[in-house]
């Protein structure tokens, strides 16, 4: 009658408990970032899987187990700090099977981490790791890897897990017939302690090496029972380490990620800002235009970590600051120059400047003809004092000479050194598709091509264009595009300020016809001084925003922010959206959460079951004996009385008395 409310409340209580307890399952949850997955002209590259669910192993497992190790169900955890480059080159080059790969980066490479400085030796260690990281990145990007590869950051929880995994891997050697198991450091090896056959008394103390041994396998007794004792002890010696290893907990790494899907229509979004110059009354000719171009998107081994502070965050920040300075100058008609200024933030930089190419193609013919020259900014954030001006037209060209002289004059005043580098455009492969098919062929044969492309080359020889960069040689395909090692801790804001001053000053002198005169237009402590906090805030924003083009939509906060900033500084802003070239196909699922579980092996469960079964059997027999006997006794006493019980025992003697 009152059963139903009781049971229904019980059921609701159970449901509540179940619902609450589902949330806490794993011991550790870590954010991890997946290796990029993309197709280049149909060739699959990068990591092709996202879901991960395997046991954890460290590099020590490989070295201890040797070549016979089967790692197809293991996730290798490799800290980049201790990475052996030849090992990983072999592993990926020979396409050895692996369950998964987890690369641990030092925290300094995290976009959220702000470097607190440190000494010179820390810097050199940082640079060493940076070089290793660049090499690893290059390997991973150009390889087809059929298992999931994730990047994570070192922290205490992961360190602890890795330490445990390493310990397990050291002791995880399979037992051979003679040794009976690998000895742990600090514990005497069992085989060393095998006494001569007759020496039993010493045996007892030496064989007890661990509580597990003594509990389960070894029977200790002071009086040696010759053969049986020895047999027990032998079992104990064999059992001990084997049991310890089987009972040792292993770790299981799980990333629950859906199947990666192609990014449907990867967009390239160019943002251009137009700052018109002062047209004299009655002058019907078009004013000449100067274009300042920078590509803002990045590409790296981990798209969710590709913040590209130097390549090309520094260029974007410089462009915005130059735009801000010129907008101040151009706001007043008295100081407005007779040049139009065009600020262009292009996308598709890593993909042979796809965005710049499309922007030029879609540009109005007349406008294109008015472009006097174009300056492209690429990686100007590192702390060297040397910059390079890369050109395609021969240095003897009058325009080039003029531009270079302008830059040299200003650079001397700033203490910078600007060099001129001339590189011819590769005319034999003028068409983009030809170049990319060359790349595909080269990748298939395993040879990484050396295609050097600068952004200014997209302007071809019709427009005078140059690239200002700290790099002296053009980077390889998909190199120096803002990868893992390119983050805030490796750039120098003062360098960006200096480069801004260099470009702005040279441009201004050219615009206002002040070349050769010693005048400091953007002097410090003036209303036109370079604003370091503006630069810092934009560097910080860009250093925490991954900017891989296929994953940016038109409504992305980054695009909106850049558009708004250019709109603040320029008169007219246009956003051009195009599709990324069909050669490139990208896949989503760029990050995930790694759950680390401590799991016990099957053998451990079996052992526990055996122990429990024996315990219950013992309990059962004990209870049967106890209760049946006692209840019999108690019933008998209760019903018959104690005297009868005593008389029962005394009856034979009383009979004896009687008969006697």
């Amino acid at each position: 009658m009152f059963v139903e409310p009781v049971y229904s409340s019980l059921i609701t209580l159970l449901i509540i408990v179940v619902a609450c307890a589902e949330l806490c399952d794993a011991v550790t949850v870590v954010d991890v970032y997946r290796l990029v997955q993309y197709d280049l002209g149909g060739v699959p590259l990068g990591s092709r899987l996202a879901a991960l669910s395997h046991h954890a192993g460290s590099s020590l497992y490989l070295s201890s187990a040797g070549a016979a190790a089967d790692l197809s169900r293991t996730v290798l955890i490799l800290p980049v700090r201790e990475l052996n480059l030849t090992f990983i080159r072999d592993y990926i080059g020979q396409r050895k099977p692996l369950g998964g790969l987890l690369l641990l980066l030092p925290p300094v490479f995290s976009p959220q981490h702000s470097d607190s400085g440190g000494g010179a030796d820390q810097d050199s260690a940082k640079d060493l790791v940076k070089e290793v990281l660049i090499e690893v990145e290059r390997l991973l990007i150009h390889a087809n890897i059929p298992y999931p590869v994730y990047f994570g950051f070192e922290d205490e929880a992961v360190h602890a897990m890795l330490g445990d995994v390493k310990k397990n891997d050291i002791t995880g050697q399979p037992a051979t017939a003679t040794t009976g198991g690998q000895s742990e450091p600090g514990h005497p090896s069992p085989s060393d302690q095998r006494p001569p056959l007759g020496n039993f008394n010493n045996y007892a103390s030496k064989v007890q090496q661990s509580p597990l041994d003594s509990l389960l396998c070894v029977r200790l007794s002071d009086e040696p029972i010759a053969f049986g004792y020895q047999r027990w002890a032998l079992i104990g010696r064999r059992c001990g380490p084997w049991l310890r290893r089987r009972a040792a907990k292993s770790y299981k790494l799980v990333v629950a990620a859906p199947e990666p899907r192609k990014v449907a229509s990867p967009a390239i979004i160019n943002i251009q800002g137009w700052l018109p110059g002062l047209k004299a009354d009655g002058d019907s000719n078009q004013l000449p235009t100067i274009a300042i171009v920078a590509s803002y998107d990045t590409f790296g081994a981990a798209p969710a970590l590709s913040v590209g502070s130097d390549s090309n965050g520094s260029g974007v920040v410089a462009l915005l600051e130059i735009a801000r300075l010129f907008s101040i100058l151009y706001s007043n008609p008295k100081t407005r120059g007779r040049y139009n200024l065009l600020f262009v933030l292009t996308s598709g930089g890593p993909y042979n400047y796809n965005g710049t190419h499309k922007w030029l193609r879609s540009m109005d013919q007349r406008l294109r003809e008015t472009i006097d020259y174009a300056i492209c900014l690429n990686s100007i954030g590192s702390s060297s004092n040397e910059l390079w001006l890369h050109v395609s037209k021969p240095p003897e060209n009058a325009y080039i000479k003029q531009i270079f002289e302008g830059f040299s004059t200003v650079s001397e005043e700033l203490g910078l050194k600007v060099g001129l580098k001339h590189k011819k455009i590769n005319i034999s492969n003028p068409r983009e598709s030809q170049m990319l098919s060359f790349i595909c062929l080269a990748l298939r044969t395993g040879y990484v091509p050396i295609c050097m492309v600068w952004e200014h080359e997209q302007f071809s020889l019709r427009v005078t264009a140059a690239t200002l960069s700290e790099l002296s040689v053009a980077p390889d395909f998909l190199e120096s595009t803002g990868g893992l090692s390119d983050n805030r801790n490796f750039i120098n804001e003062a360098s960006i300020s200096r480069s801004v001053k260099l470009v702005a000053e040279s441009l201004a002198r050219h615009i206002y016809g002040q070349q050769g005169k010693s005048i400091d237009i953007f002097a410090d402590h003036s209303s036109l001084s370079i604003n370091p906090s503006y630069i810092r805030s934009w560097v910080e924003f860009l250093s925490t925003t991954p900017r891989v083009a296929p994953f940016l939509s038109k409504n992305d906060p980054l695009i909106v922010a850049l558009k708004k900033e250019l709109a603040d500084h320029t008169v007219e802003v246009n956003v051009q959206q195009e599709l990324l070239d069909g050669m490139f196909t990208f896949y989503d699922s760029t990050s995930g959460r790694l759950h680390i579980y401590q799991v016990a092996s099957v053998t451990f469960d079996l052992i526990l079951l055996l122990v429990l079964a024996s315990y219950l059997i013992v309990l059962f027999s004990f209870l049967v004996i106890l209760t049946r006997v006692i209840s019999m006794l108690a019933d008998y006493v209760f019903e018959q009385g104690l005297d009868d019980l005593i008389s029962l025992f005394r009856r034979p003697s009383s009979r004896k008395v009687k008969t006697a």
Partner: protein
Amino acid sequence: MTMFHFLNCAILTFGPHAVYYSATPLSIILTSFLQQIRLVCLATFLKVSESDSFDPYQVLFVQSLSGIVESFDWVRRCCGLYFALTQLTHRNISQNHKFQAVGLGWAFADSVLHRLAPLWVGARGLEFTWDFVLQGLEANANLVLCLSLAALGSLIWLRKNKPKTLIPIIYACAGIVATMPSITSYLKRGLGWHFPKVVGFELFTSLVMAFISWQLFTACQRPSN
């Protein structure tokens, strides 16, 4: 093999109850057993719901207040036990076996309500902890304690002719056994003992109290002279 681990822990938690049930001659009391389960469930459910609602306050108030709350808890246990022993009539069960049935029913209900849900939810997960094995050991200790308490309760209320000297000892032991949950929770929260230590203490005390109550029970079997 997480289902496996769940099975292991379930065997450890509920196995002894089943074994006890099958080992002792209680098979004739199936219907009355279910009756007792129902009553015990009700009493225990009330205990559970009340203690849950007091939990947030325990955090805020002083430790002594939590002690007072838990003292209500053992009063309720004793009342429930009293009613179970005296009110429920059984057809063909002797007085001596009644306490075993009551104790077993109580312990089983306690285990089911307190331990089944966490076991089902937690032991099936991938993550391995020793918690559920320790919980099973705790269930074993709880079974022994419940049986001792039931034995002492039956001595107090059902047996009329007790040796005079033993009466205060019986009451003292009954008091200790009844307040055992409060003592363990004080150890856990007040002294901050770790779970394995608490379980070890529970096992030890349960065996000691079982032995003492067994001795008292057999001592009371002998009629007073």
